[in-house]
């Protein structure tokens, strides 16, 4: 019985982590290559979900899985070519602030068109069934579907990065973009492509995950800082770091929920008595209610102890 729950918790955490990875992958590559932390990246995830929703109304759910990444990718290319590139000479801070502004605009534009509330983007009936049961727990097939899409995406990104010339150029440019340029590669265009590609990945993630989690204008801000946490923990610019960071956060959050432990109860079990319980306040807050905060604590620790992240290279 306990084992069942352990396994399901683990699976939950892994799949949530994989979903985080889908959004973070583009972010970390873009940062690695151009040093831009794109605040609007999670917005691409949100827009992908809305486009997936629109497609599901008119063209069907699966069409959305194709169209959403294409449209969002085009939006990414547009943002990079027409906006980001123009402020690049003023430095990274200006690029970061620009994406910060885009983040606001994207959210408000979505509100203008779709209103403030969640839209009814649903899992298609063909995918809405239990994949298996562990004891009395049914495991929804769609969660596995999300996980599979993320894995396929991971494998595809890896294949492109490892096996194609474009991938090699991108990996090289992540570390020394000026040398790549001196060898005759048009780095700004590669960056535009990468930005578009990263946006498309986030768009696909949105189209897939939006049907499971509600599609609402706050999707971006809900995930916005969390994906930063993922890439910082993993190491800015490191794709495998993003996988590790995302899985770590997914699993830790999933298990923390089950732990009704607080500082006070810990102290009591260590024989320190009830003083902390009587003091109340922070000491009686249970770990499970802090589940959403743990990622930030992890990030803070990483930043202070190993700023290059778990898998990032020391700079």
């Amino acid at each position, binding site marked *: 019985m306990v084992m069942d729950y352990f396994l399901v918790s683990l699976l939950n955490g892994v799949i949530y982590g994989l979903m985080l990875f889908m959004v973070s992958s583009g972010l970390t590559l873009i940062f690695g290559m151009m040093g831009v932390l794109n605040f609007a990246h999670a917005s691409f995830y949100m827009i992908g979900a809305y486009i997936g929703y629109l497609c599901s109304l008119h063209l069907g759910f699966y069409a959305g899985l194709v169209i959403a990444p294409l449209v969002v990718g085009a939006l990414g290319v547009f943002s990079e070519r027409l906006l980001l590139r123009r402020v690049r000479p003023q430095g990274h801070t200006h690029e970061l602030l620009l994406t910060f502004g885009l983040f606001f605009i994207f959210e408000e534009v979505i509100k203008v068109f779709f209103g403030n*509330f969640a839209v009814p983007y649903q899992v298609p009936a063909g995918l809405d069934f239990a994949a298996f049961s562990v004891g009395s*727990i049914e495991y929804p097939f769609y969660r596995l579907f999300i996980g599979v899409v993320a894995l396929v995406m991971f494998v595809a990104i890896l294949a492109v990065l490892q096996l194609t010339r474009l991938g090699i150029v991108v990996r090289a440019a992540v570390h020394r973009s000026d040398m790549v340029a001196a060898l005759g590669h048009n780095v700004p265009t590669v960056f535009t492509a990468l930005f578009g590609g990263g946006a498309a990945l986030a768009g696909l993630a949105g189209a897939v995950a939006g049907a499971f*989690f509600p599609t609402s204008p706050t999707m971006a801000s809900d995930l916005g800082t969390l994906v930063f946490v993922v890439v910082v923990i993993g190491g800015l610019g490191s794709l495998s770091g993003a996988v590790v960071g995302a899985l770590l956060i*997914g699993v830790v*959050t999933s298990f923390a929920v089950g732990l009704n432990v607080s500082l006070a109860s810990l102290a009591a079990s260590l024989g320190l008595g009830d003083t902390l319980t009587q003091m109340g306040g922070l000491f009686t807050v249970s770990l499970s209610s802090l*589940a959403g905060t743990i990622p930030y604590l992890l990030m803070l620790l990483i930043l202070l102890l190993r700023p290059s992240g778990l898998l990032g290279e020391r700079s």
Partner: protein
Amino acid sequence: MRTLKSKVLALTALATFSIFSAAIQAAPLKIAGMVPLSGASAATGELYVQAMTYVVNRFNENGGWHGEPIKLEFYDTQESTGVASDRFQQAVAEGMNIIAQGGGSSVAASLSGDVRRWNRRHPDQQVLSFTMGGEAAGLTGENCHFHHFRFATTAAIRVQALMEAMSKTGALGEKVYAINQDYSWGHEMQEAILANADKYDYEVVGKSLHATNKLADFSPYALQSQRSGAQTVVTGNWSRDLLLLLKAIDQSGVDANLATVYLDQPGSIAAAGSAAEGSYIAQVFNAEAAKEKGAAYMEDFKKRIGTYPAGLGNNGVISMMMLTKALSSLPKQDSIDVNRIALALEKAQVDDWPTGTLTMRASDHQLLLPLVVSKVSKDARYKIDNTEYGFKPVQLLSAEQARVPADASCEMQRP
């Protein structure tokens, strides 16, 4: 360009104002509707606009307050305490007499505090504070004051109603799991769930408090409730946290009834879809439960406003019905004295509310109102959000059945 939306809505209201503006009289009663008209809660704000306009128009058409129409103005709080305070300053500067809040508890608490301080400083221009949406216990508890009235329920009221109806119909079971947001509202919900355990003979097999509107994945919570073997999961969650919880519970195949409070927020049923089916809710109003009277109210509202009243909008109707009832009991005055209105409100009794009698408890200024516990079902008469689902009544509780004792921490100083 000023508040386009409410302009469209208030078309009918404007028409009636213009009839009366010919006969200008001194100092009409002015009500400031403090509701969110932009931002994440704008749709809720709109419900209050519709509801208040409905009652006030009807009252004005029937002659208003001694021939004087009530004026109703709306201010956008953006569901932020800072903005609400600004709008309060603006409203009192524009001579408003009643500050009627619709939306969340934090804005309600902030406005009630603003009114209390304003009245202390301006004894000659006092105003009343109506809470139509805040359900935090403190509003009629430690922070209660004579000029504040609550026309909404509290966690204690809602939970007791849910437990009463669900245990009567055998839906409750013996094991209950409480999942709530980790802030004062969620804490109050959890306390209420614990407090009712003996009375309705159930055991709280687990309780979780989670960060508010921060988590993206609720499946761990669904798993916890599954693990506990709970037969009913009770939650005070709203908006996104409610949707995520509903979906997680539905998709994990958790075999428990879900008891909720805010499932009738606009858009919730549409977004949750089939995941919401079978969930229970304690509602301020359900037309189907009130039979013909309910239908008549629904149709009259639709005739005047263009849509059926929904969810928290009914709190707006109730508050304005109570107010107009109280006004009608007062003799004609030269100037507006809110203390007399407040005293009249304490004694007001509304009998033509479709689900039963409404009265105001004088000791803490909490409205005593009937509640309906319903279940999301395809059989419901009135469908929600253009879906095939609606709220099918399970039990109608009279105001007497639904009341809970006044909070002992309320020490009201009366004039």
